[in-house]
């Protein structure tokens, strides 16, 4: 590509207009004497409008603009895991080395370490017919994750030569008969979804260890979920819990326009956390993208694409990937900011008219697919939404809700009562249970769906009763309804509340969740019997074994004890009949 040079005509914040070049849409260009990275987002007569990924102050009209001929791409290969990138895949660790603790500009950094040698094990051999997406070899990238080196999309042929050994990511490890050389690294434009054969209907749950999510509002592998909530309602904690505990093999965490200290917390905490599924540090399966709120806004816009492209790449290897984007509202605001600099006609609340189609395109990149190699892989996307004032009638929330299949609605009122996770059980929903029920019956318990229905029904009844209580007080209710209130309180305080910061309570496996739900229903049954037999509600509720069941969830080995405690509770409740 011959270098075509133009000149800067105008600068307004992150938006720069150039003349004298004829780039393609979304082509990457170098702006100014410092060669800042930018992307063409509008063509207008002989003017090209560029969003610049770095701070633009001090740049003057008349400085050069150079075409690169490429669209914004990420480097994919061994070395992605355990990394933390900014929005355009520059490793933050490298940036620290070159510019110190504060991010200045004009520094390029490769997404992958091009010098590091990896042990490549060829799994295909000479003479094999390979197509795009076929795995030709593996690299043990981290202790737990085997990186599968694939034939890049668009290439195929018969292997002429392939060799195992130590290579860096750019060295050729395999040659095809037409002369195509394949290295461990491939590049892919972030705004284009990576190819696959077909999408499956999701029928396996993504298990998160969070009781309210797994039990009441489950997400399927390859599914999409939105978490809207006002500030302080626990979006970030919920996202981090999912990143820590979900049973995906790979986690991509995008901190998009969020707090710097929060990302640091994730960075310092993750290396010390142990993955309950593998027993190895969680960082081994994680890639992070951090474009904090004060980092350049155009790079924030790009960050979600960078993240999802990396997620798709691991999906293509046959892995289940979970992607968390915190927060998609900041991404939407970045679009709004750029759009207003372009003086585009705004849609609702100043957001560009293409907001909802961009959101849809992004979530549509999720899914459980048959990969080009014929394996199963999935990308589940969980997007946090930060609606202004907590009012979800705004465009980003609404645009998200139209697409996602799971809605975990965070509630400021619950957060104020320190009910965490503050997910409102009345307004939240999941469209997956039907598709997943068979899996629960086969793997957890045959009556799992029925128990779930019973628990949600109780919560629904409670909500109705509470309306009456608001008017007349709970003492005015008949005793069976008072009991229902107690049972519902138990569901809320014992089951739905879960302490993310408690070593034991932070994760409950599905079996335990099921047992806990059964314990609540057992209490209800026993209590009904006892009350019919003349016991008073107060003493039934206060039996020691029930308190032990409720407090016990914070203790190690609870799983082994709970069944016994439930039996004990039954005895103690029956005994209350005799007291009277």
């Amino acid at each position, binding site marked *: 590509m011959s270098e075509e040079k133009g000149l800067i005509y105008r600068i307004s914040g992150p938006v720069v207009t150039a003349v004298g070049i004829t780039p393609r849409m979304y082509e990457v260009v170098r702006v100014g004497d410092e060669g800042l990275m930018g992307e063409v987002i509008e063509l207008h007569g002989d003017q090209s409008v560029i969003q610049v990924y770095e701070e*633009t102050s001090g*740049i003057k*009209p008349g400085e050069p603009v150079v075409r690169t001929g490429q669209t914004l791409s990420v480097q994919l290969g061994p070395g992605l895991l355990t990394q*933390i990138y900014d929005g355009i895949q520059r490793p933050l660790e490298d*940036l620290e080395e070159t510019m110190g603790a504060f991010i200045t500009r004009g520094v390029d950094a490769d997404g992958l370490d091009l010098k590091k040698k990896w042990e490549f094990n060829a799994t295909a051999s000479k003479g094999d017919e390979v197509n795009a997406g076929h795995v030709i070899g593996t690299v043990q990238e981290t202790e737990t994750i085997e990186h599968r080196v694939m034939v890049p999309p668009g290439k195929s042929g018969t292997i002429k030569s392939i060799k195992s050994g130590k290579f860096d990511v750019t060295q050729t490890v395999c040659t095809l008969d037409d002369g195509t050389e394949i290295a461990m690294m491939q590049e892919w434009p972030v705004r284009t979804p990576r190819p696959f054969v077909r999408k499956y209907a999701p029928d396996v749950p993504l298990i998160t260890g969070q009781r309210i999510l797994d039990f009441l509002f489950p997400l399927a592998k390859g599914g999409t979920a939105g978490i809207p909530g006002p500030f302080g309602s626990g979006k970030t904690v919920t996202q981090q819990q999912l990143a820590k505990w979900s049973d995906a093999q790979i986690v991509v965490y995008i901190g998009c326009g969020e707090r710097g200290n929060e990302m*640091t917390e994730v*960075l310092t905490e993750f290396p010390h956390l142990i993955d309950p599924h593998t027993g190895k540090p969680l960082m081994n399966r994680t890639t992070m993208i951090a474009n904090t709120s004060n980092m350049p806004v155009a790079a924030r816009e790009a960050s979600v694409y960078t993240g999802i492209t990396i997620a798709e790449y691991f999906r293509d290897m046959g892995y289940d990937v979970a992607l968390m984007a915190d927060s998609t509202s900041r991404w939407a605001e970045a679009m709004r900011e750029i759009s207003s600099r372009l003086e585009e006609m705004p849609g609702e609340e100043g957001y560009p008219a293409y907001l909802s189609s961009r959101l849809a395109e992004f979530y549509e990149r999720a899914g459980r697919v048959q990969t080009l190699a014929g394996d199963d892989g999935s990308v589940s996307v969980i997007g946090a939404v930060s609606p202004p*004032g907590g009012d979800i009638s705004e465009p980003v929330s609404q645009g998200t809700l139209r697409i996602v299949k799971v809605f975990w609605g965070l509630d400021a009122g619950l957060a*104020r009562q320190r009910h965490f996770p503050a997910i409102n059980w009345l307004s939240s929903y999941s469209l997956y249970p039907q598709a997943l029920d068979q899996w629960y019956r086969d793997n957890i318990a045959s009556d799992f769906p029925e128990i779930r229905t019973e628990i949600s029904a109780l919560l629904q009844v409670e909500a109705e009763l509470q309306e009456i209580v608001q008017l007349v007080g709970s003492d005015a209710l008949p005793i069976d309804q008072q009991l229902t209130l107690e049972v519902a309180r138990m569901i809320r305080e014992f089951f739905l509340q879960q302490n993310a910061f408690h070593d034991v309570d932070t994760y409950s496996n599905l079996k335990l969740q099921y047992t806990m739900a059964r314990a609540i229903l057992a209490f209800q049954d026993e209590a009904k019997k006892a009350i019919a037999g003349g016991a008073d509600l107060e003493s039934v509720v206060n039996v020691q074994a029930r308190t032990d069941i409720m407090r016990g969830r914070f203790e190690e080995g609870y799983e082994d004890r709970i069944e016994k405690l439930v039996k004990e509770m039954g005895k103690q409740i029956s005994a209350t009949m005799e007291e009277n």
Partner: protein
Amino acid sequence: MSGKEYRTITDVKGPLVFLNKTEPVAYGEIVQLRLSDGTMKNGQVLDTSDDQVIVQVFEGTSSVDRQTGVKFLGDVFRLPVSKDLVGRILDGAGRPRDGGPAIVPDEMADIIGAAINPYSRESPESFIQTGISAIDACTSLVRGQKLPIFSAAGLPHNDIALQIARQAKLVGSDDDFVVVFCAMGITAEEYNFFVHDLERTGALENSALFVNLADDPAVERLITPRLALTAAEYLAFEHDYHVLVIYTDMTNYCESLRQIGAAREEVPGRRGYPGYMYTDLAMLYERAGLVKGKKGSITQFPILTMPGDDITHPIPDLSGYITEGQIVISRELHQKGIYPPINVLPSLSRLMNAGIGDGKTREDHKSVSDQLYAAYAQGKELRGLVAIVGEDALNERDLQLLKFADIFENEFLRQSRDEDRSIGEGTLDLAWNLLTNIDTKYLVRLDQKWIDKYHPTEKKE
């Protein structure tokens, strides 16, 4: 740079000056305007192209005419920084206001400030004791945090900010805080209140003040906090100070932002505030923190008054999404005569968990805080119910919680303006004493082991 002086102004609109120019001018460059009567004004380039330059004038555009000379200084806005900033009072544009000599700079620092690489940050986890129970117990502050005070007109947020500035200390350390105080559009009266208090307590010589008052140019407010933060960064990261930045009032800052946006005919976001207000605020708030390998720290206390006491207004709303929690001042408590009228229910400190517990404050802190919170929240909710059905309809548990809400407000929240409670004996023990008003069987948020150890009447020793 000597630079040419242009007399090519075409339009003047609000605080903006549009001119045709002949040479390339950099985005963000500093501009000097010389009026026909010799007055000098300063500005900054907001938009630049081959044909036209838009300059935002800090002092306002009154008396600017087509003959006004405009000079581009070839550099972005910089603040002369040195250790001598401590003890000085500067105006909103960084010039001495105390009659003292000009600052002899060690360095000319770019006031926009670069983003701290998240990888280079250190997690804030040193508890700051403010001596105010409501904050220390329920919304604990840590060094490097940004914790705004959400207040409203007529509430004592200034007293609280000053009490924090006076009492803030790290438990078990002699390190003092240097206060950088940034006033944006506050009245002379409020300003005097701050200065007198700082003088009275001898804190003034440990402070640097940047002052833009209500009658100072509104557009200048857009740079005042940037100057203050630049000074803070220099003191913290070059001279190892622990800096406490108090800025008031963020609402005035945002008004100025809206003014510029309107003058540029930008597409407005919510309530006329510019769509980039989130990013703009983030560029201030995110300058709090700790950096690996540096001893100093920046802790921020922005004060903002919520228009119409509305927490969903864009200013508190966007702030809340960036800052690490908020301290909410309540008119209801204030009217009950309770100082400090901090409503702990909507208040929050996101970094609290990292800063409290064994070895930092006390092992039972988290449990106690959760329990206080839950009990007070339920008690307050019951007040609404009692107003309808009367106390008779309540059961024993509810009655206890109802009473507890009053006790909590009167004995826990309430303290005097110079009462400095220590976290252990002062605050947490007090909390335990008040919790004896509730039967332990209702205290479900407390681990049994803390009840055994700390409960005044039920502990096992």
